[in-house]
């Protein structure tokens, strides 16, 4: 029992209609659906295509022959794009990974306790944790910044790692608790009979059974921290410690306003970590979105 499947078959088979006329109408309907979807899809992908296209041109080609193919293809844009972004990407992946590890450990532990333990004040504490979902970022942005400054961790990796970890937990606890609640009680009963400690029950039974939800949580948290912009902008000022999303905006000043090719290449380079992540974890991410939605 690795996952709980909630999905229905992907296609909804309708009984076949015999009449040829109806079948032709049906086929025409399918054609219209596909056509409109392809148009929408093409429009949706325009910025991405534009990005890749520009990343292979130089300024002369962009200004002179806007619609022309990249000729010659400027692969060297990617080397300058990579040089500009590599430190930022390394930083972001480092901070995000540390935060992901923290979030996964803390959320699963707390989620486990709330799903499996009975103790006084449990529900009140849980409501107080969930209440944090109602606190919008605008309220806490500036006070958090001042607080982090007062704690003396401004412009250090901790300034982003700790708040990311603390904030990411709330959703993680929600996710983990609802998952752990579905695990059969008997497993834990028998574990207790065999003399397992509470921590062993968590570590030996709950965790191995919940890899899918943990991977989901990890990916969702990684993506959200990778995309975070305002918080690192406020708290990290030195360029050597900066993260990707802020680094991208500071690219302008590094290369001058007009050097579009390397800039677009840098955008592509900044996209690659997420691309790799989604290649492996797309379905976990989708599960995170949909399960979060059903519970919210």
């Amino acid at each position, binding site marked *: 029992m690795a996952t709980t499947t909630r999905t229905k078959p*992907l296609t909804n088979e309708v009984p076949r209609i015999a009449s040829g006329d109806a079948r032709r109408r049906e086929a025409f309907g399918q054609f219209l659906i596909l056509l409109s979807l392809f148009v929408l899809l093409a429009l949706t992908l325009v910025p991405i295509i534009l*990005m890749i296209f520009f990343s292979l041109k130089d300024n002369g080609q962009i200004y002179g022959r806007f*619609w022309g193919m990249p000729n010659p293809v400027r692969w060297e844009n990617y080397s300058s794009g990579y040089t500009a972004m590599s430190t930022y990407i390394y930083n972001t992946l480092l901070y995000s990974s540390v935060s992901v590890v923290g979030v996964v450990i803390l959320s699963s532990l707390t989620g486990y306790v709330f799903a499996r333990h009975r103790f006084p004040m449990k529900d009140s504490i849980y409501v107080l944790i969930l209440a944090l979902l109602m606190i919008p970022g605008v309220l806490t942005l500036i006070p958090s910044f001042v607080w982090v400054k007062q704690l003396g961790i401004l412009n250090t990796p901790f300034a982003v790692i700790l708040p990311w970890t*603390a904030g990411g*937990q709330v959703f993680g606890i929600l996710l983990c608790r609802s998952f752990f609640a579905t695990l059969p009680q008997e497993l834990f009963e028998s574990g207790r009979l065999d003399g397992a400690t509470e921590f062993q029950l968590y570590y030996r039974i709950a965790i191995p059974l919940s890899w899918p939800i943990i991977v989901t949580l990890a990916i969702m948290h990684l993506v959200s921290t990778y995309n975070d912009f305002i918080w690192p902008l406020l708290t990290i000022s030195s360029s050597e410690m900066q993260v990707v999303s802020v680094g991208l905006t500071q690219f302008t000043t590094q290369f001058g306003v007009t050097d579009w090719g390397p800039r677009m290449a840098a955008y592509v380079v900044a996209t690659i970590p997420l691309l790799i992540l989604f290649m492996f974890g797309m379905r976990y991410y989708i599960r995170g979105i949909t399960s979060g939605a059903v519970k919210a």
Partner: protein
Amino acid sequence: MPRLRHIMLSLIFVIWAMMLSIPTLAQSGQWEQQLGDVVYSTALSGDGSIQVVGSRDNRAAAYDAQGNLLWEFKPNSTVWGVSTSQDGQLTAVASEDRNVYLLNGQGEQLWAFRSSRIVVDVAVSADGSRIFASDDGRTVYFLDGTTGEPVWQATLQNIADRISIYGTKTIRAVAGNRDSQVILFGPDGKQLWTTQLDDSVLSVDVNSNGKYIVAGTLNGKITLINGANGDTLWRIDVPNAVACTTRDKSNCVNVAINADGSRILVGTLNGDVYLLDGADGKVLQSQNAAAPITSVSISQDGQTLMFGTRTGVVNSVNTAVAAAEFAAAQERQRNLTIGIPIALLLAAAVFTVWVQRTSSGSNFWAVSMRRPREFVRLAWRSRISYILITPTIILLLIFNYYPAFSGLYHSFTEWTPGIGEKWVGLTQFQGVFNSQYFWIGIQNAVILAVSAFIKLCVPLLVAELIFHIRSGPLQYAIRTMFIVPLVVPGVVGVLLWVNIYDPNIGLLNQSLRLLGLDNLTRAWLGDKTTALPAIIAMGLPWVSPFALLIFYGGLISIPQELFDAAKVDGATWLTRFWRIDLPLLMSQIKLLVILAFIGSVQEFQSIFLTTGGGPGSVTYTPALELYYQATRFNNYGLASAMGTVLFIVILGGTIINLRYVRSQTEYEA
């Protein structure tokens, strides 16, 4: 979740009670006036009773300590510098009309000295017998106070933007120039010493015996120099310094020092005014004027402080009065902090006696302690649970709860982090609602929210279309393709649209040119009429992968039997959509509407990355104004108040949505 609602309601009640219980502190001992134009210079008589102001609208004027106008003098051009003698009866004015004027106690001209260049600053000795002036031809003049004739003049390596003078018998002059030098001149014009600082000297002042010279430099540092030999006594960075460029040098760092050198007043580009301890440069007091400070002055006793801003505000405050107020407030605070524990201790003592000595008391104790004792016993038995959740709770308390309450609390204060805070009641909220930027922001937020709701139709449509594809693999492939934009980091997504809107090489203008519609091309984000629509149109055709996945997830969880039944009843696809899909997707729609609402109220990142609120202020949002108030103007209290207002708006919207937009989820599998 009724419990949650109770928490929120009591929270709102607490805020309301806080607003009622504490009255706004009245400010006194000071005056403030809005003059017409930039205040380039201020000066105080020795006791602070005569306060002189020079401004860009060709005007020099004197006020008394209560802000009543004493006299007014109008030269032919901008007044760059004013200075007044110890008794305030002789005032010198440096003007762009190339004259140095000396005025008497009624503001009447005694003489004028004509320089060949614009006069940038002037200083009058305590007795008025010598006047020191500097022009932008790098020349400084040492004038006789009675005749207006030069005693000596000297040409420096570079322009001395600010100068000062001290002494009564032996009168010496100090100049700070753009070559980062502070120079001391003797009464005969001899350069006694020259000190090299590390950046252009923007302001300089000297105490009454010449022992201390304070200088502010372009790199945001303040240096205290030993007047005897030119050695540096200390050097500090201006707190919260904003990087200055040579363009705003007259607002960058302004300094003034009192008679014994014990107090230094500093005004900065971001509107901060600091009172420093002359001994070590420690900040004693601070306030923010919300506009770049162009000039500061301090009286000889250090009690009267005065500053002028680029927006033409003159502010004068007597710190003795302000300090008395502050002390009274502290006294009240102290009484509270001592009084409350004492009262509590007394109550506890009385209670203990009652419980221990009387039968009714011990009876009450036994009955009322039964449940708490049980609670403690249970809690102790499940201590392992508490230990396991402790790390989470501690992190949440530190990084989530504390900032939230800090934000709510500081909405009621004037808050300068690291220096102090002052309870001002509802003043900050008044500021929020009087801020035109905030209202423009609210207007835009409403537009953004409505358009965000409309945009939700597209993912719904796409989800329906994908759901109706017959071929399984094709359905999967198309769904995946629509989710691909998720891999693009959010910032890149916005920056790509900035590129699409670029006036020269943007895809939009290039396409228009290709179609021969050259007259429609424009700087989409730079044009007042199109900036906001362009921001709204970003992401066209708005197939948000997130919304698509949620709608699609909702569609596939609708039981197949319902569709079959509809089919049997001969329902068209439109009826089916209205009668089955839409009602059953209501919980998803509700969720996305809430999220879109919250997102629009907090919208900030995409505006920040595209227009920064411009052109003018047409694309401001409340959250952007909040960010600017905190980061640009250091108005942390005002920013907190904006955060609180937005929090209440979001909370209200969410509750209304949860309550009145009904969902039908009985069919949910």
